[in-house]
């Protein structure tokens, strides 16, 4: 290798190193809070905010956060009112709003979602939010304000961005919202259930943000009769209710994924009637189909219940 080539390689390496260094430094550098040399931003109190923003401060005061911050602050942060979340407002106030707030929320905010969410997580990174970081919603850059509205009361519970949970979650999960409109559905639209009966949208230790340790454990919350253990178990039932059911809604009875008898026939190719394609008028097809006889398909505790007839 010639010296000229070695020199070129060295200089190329140095250039790459400088470039990488610059890129890394841009990543590592903390966010710039304000223009250098400007007066330090200080807290001015919610009364100052109210002077220019009377409507949002009034609606905010009717919310749980508003009441807590105003009437029963438990620490210094909460006692700062508007500035507890938006940061010190002196520069914003002094510039008649020309200077941006340190933290703004929502679509048009200059702060990335993670910085917006960090404000909420100062107080809320506990209990149900334990698994927020690294969870599916956090990693897709959802903001807390995608689902929650703090400045006014929109929903009866949880300060949701929409009137109820299914509308809130349905903003992105449009298929799930559509499934809830089907004729075979869980009673969400009747108000007897909510998405959060089964899911924790903030993250959980279980895939699909389930609140319990497995799919079945979620279902057992209301269907504890299916929990067993039974003398005669049905293996796919033991492993996951989702092998046969889609709880979000289907066009088949009992929220089944596939109509009976085809559902059962996907796996049962033993002999005799399970292997028969059947005709529409067959007693193996109409009414309850396979479960006309195999009524204990979720498990039986009867000594002679081997085939789930008893």
């Amino acid at each position, binding site marked *: 290798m010639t010296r000229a080539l070695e020199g070129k390689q060295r200089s190329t390496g140095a250039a790459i190193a400088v470039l990488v260094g610059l890129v890394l430094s841009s990543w590592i550098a903390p966010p710039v809070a304000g223009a250098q040399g400007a007066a330090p931003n200080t807290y001015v109190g919610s009364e100052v905010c109210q002077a220019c923003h009377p409507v949002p401060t009034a609606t905010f005061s009717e919310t749980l956060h508003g009441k807590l911050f105003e009437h029963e602050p438990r620490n210094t942060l909460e006692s700062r009112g508007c500035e507890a979340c938006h940061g010190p407002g002196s520069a914003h106030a002094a510039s008649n709003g020309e200077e941006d707030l340190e933290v703004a929320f929502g679509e*048009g905010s200059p702060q990335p979602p993670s910085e917006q969410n960090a404000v909420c997580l100062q107080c809320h990174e506990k209990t149900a939010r334990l698994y927020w970081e690294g969870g599916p919603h956090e990693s897709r850059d959802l903001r807390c304000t995608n689902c929650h509205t703090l400045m006014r009361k929109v929903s009866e519970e949880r300060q949701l961005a929409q009137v109820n949970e299914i509308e809130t979650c349905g903003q992105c999960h449009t298929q799930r919202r559509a499934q809830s409109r089907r004729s075979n559905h869980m009673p969400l639209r009747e108000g007897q259930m909510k998405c959060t009966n089964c899911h924790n949208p903030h993250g959980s230790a279980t895939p699909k943000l389930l609140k319990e340790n497995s799919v079945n454990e979620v279902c057992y919350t209301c269907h504890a009769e299916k929990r067993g253990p039974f003398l005669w178990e049905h293996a796919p039932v033991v492993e996951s209710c989702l092998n046969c059911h889609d709880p979000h809604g289907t066009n088949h009875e009992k929220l089944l994924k596939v109509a009976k008898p085809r559902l059962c026939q996907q796996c049962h190719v033993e002999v005799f009637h399970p292997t028969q394609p059947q005709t529409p008028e067959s007693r193996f097809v109409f009414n309850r189909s396979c479960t006309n006889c195999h009524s204990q398909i979720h498990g039986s505790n009867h000594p002679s219940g081997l085939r789930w007839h008893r």
Partner: protein
Amino acid sequence: MSNSSRSLKNPGRFVWVLGALLGLFVLSPGSALGQTDVSGTVELGVRGFLAGVPDSARGKFEEYRDIPSGLFLEDLQLRLLTDDQRYSLELRAQDAFQNDQIFLLRGSRLGSYQLELNFEEAWHTFSNTGLSPFAETGRGIFELDDALQATLQDTDAADRPDILEGFLDNNAVPIELLTPRQTGRISFKLTPTPEWDIGARWTNMQKEDGRPMGLTYGFGPTTEITEPIDQTINDVRLSGGFVREAWQLQLNYTLSSFTNNVDALIADNPVRITDDATAGPVRGRLDLTPDNIAHNVDLAGAVRLPLRSRLVGTASYGIRRQDEAFLPHTINSAITSPLLSLPANSLDGDVRTTLVNLRLTSQPWRKVSLAARYRSYDFDNQTPVLTFPARVRTDQRLIEGPFENQQYSYRKQNAGADVQWRPRPVSVKLAYDWERWNRGDTEREVGRTDEHTAKVSLDMTPLDWLLLRTSYAHSWRDGTDYAQVVDLQLPALRKYDMADRERDRVEVLAQITPLKGPTFTATYSLRNDDYDESLYGVQDYESWTAGVDVSWSPSEAVAVFAGYMREEFDRRHRSRYRRSGVDTVANDWVSRDQDDVDTYGFGLDAALIPGSLNLYVRYDFSLANGIMLASNPFTITNDSAIATDFPEITQKLHELEASLRYPILDRWSAELRYELDRFDQEDFRIDDIQPFMGRTDIFLGARTPDYNASMLSLIVGYHF
């Protein structure tokens, strides 16, 4: 009979609940504080049916709800708030005195504690067309007229159906097929300091009445009766959590107990008046779901680490027990054998579950996030394996064994890692995930499966008004050798939950929000499963959905929403007709099951006269078509192998609500509401179901007839 009138059979319960809640409300410390603000809402309405729903169709119409005609209390809210805003007490009642009533009483001190009492009632109505000739002479004991049984036993088999049909025509009487569920809940949350969270919750759920259930007496008659339901679930949850800036801990305990107050269902066999060891029993006995109990304790925590890293983990341990006494093998007195002695009095069922979950996240550079995760869920079924020398099939016939119960255990492990780069306005994530199921070689066909998934997500906001979220994932699942565990099973079958599989998934969401204009949301998803190694069983499954939503608020006075979603599901599986001596590829058949669903939605919320007259409209329409096609790829050798298409199953559900709301005077409001609910279904399996369907079977005739209801309501509200 309408469902709403049924609620009157036990009015005392509702009065008790409301009285208790009101009593607590009045006697609560909050109301005794003197200086309080009182506010609330009472909305009382009257409803009339312009087009009524026949009683036969109310089962589906009121499947999970109660829509009475006449007076109804839609909403009741009372709030007490002390002048210093610290203490509050709130009572809410929704649809009070109806079958779907919900009550909530909540007392709290701001930022300190909260006590909640809930009472919810939900009726699940299965059908209003049920007819049954059985008389329930004791809870869970269903008897037929002895004369019928005697007659049918003494009649030639060919003549029995006519006799039974005549009997059912005259003796099948209406029965209720519904399961009311009542749930009471008390929960208490305490936050002594912002660092502490302590909670306790007790939930009591009662389920009553019954739902359709089948009972067979061999390949002879099959009957359908009402499963008697008298079940109680009690859940207790205790939780505690402590958080510091750098770490936090949570400890939770859950107890769940299930009690069934009816142990067995006994129903007469229509064709037997005497027990016989081959012809069948006088009665059949079915074991109803046994009592069980479950405990779970879990410890979770998180700790902050250098490089903006965080480790979060959960360790959880659960125990499930079930030890209800076994019933005898049969109620058929003609079948006696020393082989029918039970190896144990009860199962001593015992399952242990262990969960370990760890997640490490890190943001070593501002725009780069890393995550790694591991999860193990171990389902260890320690229930003893019992050996039964014989069994009695459907109380009809002794079958010698031995038979052993199989207890399935499994362990499911997941691990994965991802790296995410967020150079705004783009976010790219590359992820790899692995899932392993260990099932045990002897219980299931595949001892171990490994599924690998590679996923890339690309989210971007290239313009202020455009958000794109896209992802693609490819998975491939391989298992250890597929070994037959049931002697009669077709060896070449691959069950879809364990079979080798390739899966592709695509998801796209685009949200366009022009400045202060309407928001358009378009979604598309595709899932394609290939089971290329499966000669029999599910061959492939493909589904896709596409939808578009538009929402727009041109002014503060108007909000409009419209949406459409198309979903298609297409699954193909292959099977073979088989019986003793007949097992040839010529009798193969292929089924293709397709479901198409279209969902339309529209909403309008408009202030026709700002601050005064408001119009609200909501319309949803779901149209679902399901079809099961079947064909034989070869020339069959046995008529039982003939595969034919089944008739299409369709469901159409329209729901329209339109209301005008107008404030009268200062505190009063009036709302005129029109509702249209229409349901049309064609399902060859149940459309014509009657108690008599030929042979000597007895069904309930539980159908869900179409309905076309339109209602007009006037609701007067008082707000204070």
